């Protein structure tokens, strides 16, 4: 896989695309970062045209998500068309619309993976988050249908204040269902920058306990070790695949570097995807940034190990700036202040627990328990 990523990077190929086919949803999760109104989502012909362009551009990994993608009546047609073009398709869903027939169809299409959010093994907790009575029972039933068809299912357990205590139960449930399990304490601001979901984030002491749980991070001593000295390779490195080999496309055809990086780069309703990918000034700018170009982070001891998310930094006002969430993660992990924290005048008594955030997907090895 590493070789493939290097090759895609060298060739300038968008290897992975996350496509939300709708923002509509049949759940109303309290922490969701989306507005669910349909403001003119792409039609099936538009999506077919887009998928053809993505295929021609070399996209291999395609994540179909939403909103809840299956609320689109044509979702299976979209999936079928995507598979006919050879994409490796991952479906992210709450699964409450999946019964045996749908599971069989997904199997026949060769969907590689279905990722499903489960917030708790207790209905009263899960359903209170989704605001849909009976949703846990339906989701679990769907997982059984999918597993019965031999499909790979990943249970994604997003951690918040209200369900933090239930991760062990969800992990046991996933094991009983034969599903993989991922733990994700990532709660992001609204795509429009609204910060209301952030009140659900777990507190610093809980993040710290995650970082010291060998079941979640493996070798705790290694995981929490001080960062190695910064070298030239780190200074020349770039933060993540966003805009380099991956991007995000909204239901309205707008292209962004990542689902967590709301910098509009162009619309496939106005120009071709490949033209946007190759020529968008915004994507070029994202691609141009190296560690040495970050005014604060380039002098940070954590430069080589920090999971600095440029999207979160962008939402804080500067894609070249620190992401305070990642600064605080680095601090909680190692006990060593970051350059960003020092620049803000932080000290050991002023770390704001409520601004502590995320442990996002860029640390999958560390926080994923299978």
């Amino acid at each position, binding site marked *: *896989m590493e*070789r*493939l990523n290097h*090759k*895609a990077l060298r*060739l300038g*190929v968008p290897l992975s695309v996350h496509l939300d086919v709708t923002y509509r949803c049949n759940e109303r999760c309290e922490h969701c970062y989306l507005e669910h109104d349909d403001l003119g989502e792409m039609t099936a012909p538009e999506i077919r045209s887009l998928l053809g362009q993505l*295929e021609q551009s*070399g*996209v*291999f990994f395609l994540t179909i998500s939403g909103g809840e993608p299956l609320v689109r009546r044509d979702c299976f047609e979209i999936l079928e068309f995507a*598979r*006919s073009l*050879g*994409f*490796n*398709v991952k479906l992210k869903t709450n699964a409450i619309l999946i019964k045996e027939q749908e599971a069989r169809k997904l199997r026949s299409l*060769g*969907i*590689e*993976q279905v990722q499903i959010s489960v917030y708790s093994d207790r209905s009263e907790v899960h359903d209170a988050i989704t605001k849909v009575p009976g949703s846990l029972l339906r989701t679990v039933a769907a997982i059984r249908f999918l597993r019965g068809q*031999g499909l*790979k299912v990943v249970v994604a357990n997003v951690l918040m204040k209200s369900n933090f205590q239930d991760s062990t139960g969800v992990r046991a449930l996933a094991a009983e269902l034969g599903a993989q399990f991922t733990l994700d304490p990532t709660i992001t601001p609204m795509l429009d920058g609204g910060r209301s979901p952030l009140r659900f984030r777990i507190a610093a002491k809980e993040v710290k306990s995650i970082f010291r749980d060998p079941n979640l991070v493996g070798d705790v001593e290694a995981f929490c070790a001080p960062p190695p000295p910064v070298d030239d390779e780190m200074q020349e490195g770039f933060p993540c695949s966003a805009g380099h080999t991956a991007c995000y496309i909204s239901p309205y055809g707008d292209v962004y570097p990542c689902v967590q990086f709301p910098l509009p780069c162009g619309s496939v309703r106005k120009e071709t995807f490949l033209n946007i990918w190759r020529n968008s000034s915004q994507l070029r700018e994202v691609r141009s940034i190296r560690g040495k170009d970050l005014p604060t982070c380039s002098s940070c001891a954590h430069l080589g190990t920090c999971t600095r998310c440029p999207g979160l930094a962008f939402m804080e006002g500067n894609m070249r700036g620190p992401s305070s969430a990642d600064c605080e993660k680095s601090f909680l992990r190692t006990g060593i202040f970051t350059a960003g924290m020092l620049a803000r005048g932080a000290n050991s008594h002023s770390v704001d627990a409520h601004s502590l955030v995320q442990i996002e997907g860029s640390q999958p090895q560390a926080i994923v328990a299978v």
Partner: protein
Amino acid sequence: MNEKYIARSQKVAWRLLDGEMIVMSAFNSTLFNLNTVATRIWQAADGHTPLSKIVRGLICEEFDVDPEVAYRDAEVFVNELASHGILTLSEQPVPSSGDKPWA
């Protein structure tokens, strides 16, 4: 010698990247990087062209290799991919999706 017919599995993902085919199984997420010759065999695996014809008509002509050596190598290759469920191997022509994974 019995003829062998090869067909691409419906349960795989594929993409041609810089002349080399990437194939991933949906069963176990195994990723295969096919070299140039293997890519041509994969592309020709339509379920009704015998492997011998693929080797003789495509591989030997395009890559200037000895037919016997090429056929032996091709057999090893298709057997391995068949063992991973990437190709279907049969002594009779098999139905194919008709798709063109090299497009």
